[in-house]
């Protein structure tokens, strides 16, 4: 198993962990954590799999991951500020379980 494959597989494992947690965790902070793990997993996968071909690192996935990290932190900041407002306005730290359907 090559280095890249190892990390790509780590990515897959982390992705499933994060996905699972995103679905089952109720606390908003945990959902945000899950989302971040999910993001990191995808980034690992991206670089790991792209490296398979040659020896020299490919700049394209690197650029993609750098962008992705910035996006992830912005989304996290947005999510946390929403969570704070939700707590302040309605005292909620979880999403209402039963949705208004």
């Amino acid at each position: 198993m090559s280095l890249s494959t190892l990390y790509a597989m780590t990515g897959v494992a982390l992705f499933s962990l994060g996905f699972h947690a995103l679905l089952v965790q109720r606390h908003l902070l945990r959902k945000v954590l899950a989302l971040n793990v999910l993001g990191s997993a995808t980034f690992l996968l991206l670089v790991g799999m792209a490296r398979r071909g040659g020896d020299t690192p490919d700049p394209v996935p690197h650029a993609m991951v750098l962008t992705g990290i910035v996006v992830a932190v912005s989304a996290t900041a947005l999510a946390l500020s929403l969570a704070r407002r939700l707590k302040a306005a309605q005292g909620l730290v979880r999403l209402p379980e039963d949705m208004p359907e």
Partner: protein
Amino acid sequence: MIFDHVLALTLVGLAWRLLSTSHLFKAVVLFITFGLLLALAWVRLEAPDIALAEAAIGAGLTGALLLDARARLEPRDDVPDIAPAGSGPPAPDASH
């Protein structure tokens, strides 16, 4: 190579713990650790640029945001927050 295997396993283990621990504060700290180890993985993957970004933004900035949010959302420190029975990963209480 062995180092990489250990690192990969640690990452998965950390992720597991941080997503399932019953204490929010602990989870956030674990997440920061996870980010720092991930930066190490980026170095191993010959991506020092990503490693720097990960350490600074992924672990540092996100970690700070999370710590701040935790303090505001759950001021009474660590209220156990166990996922509803049967729907989450098993609570890791047995290990600590």
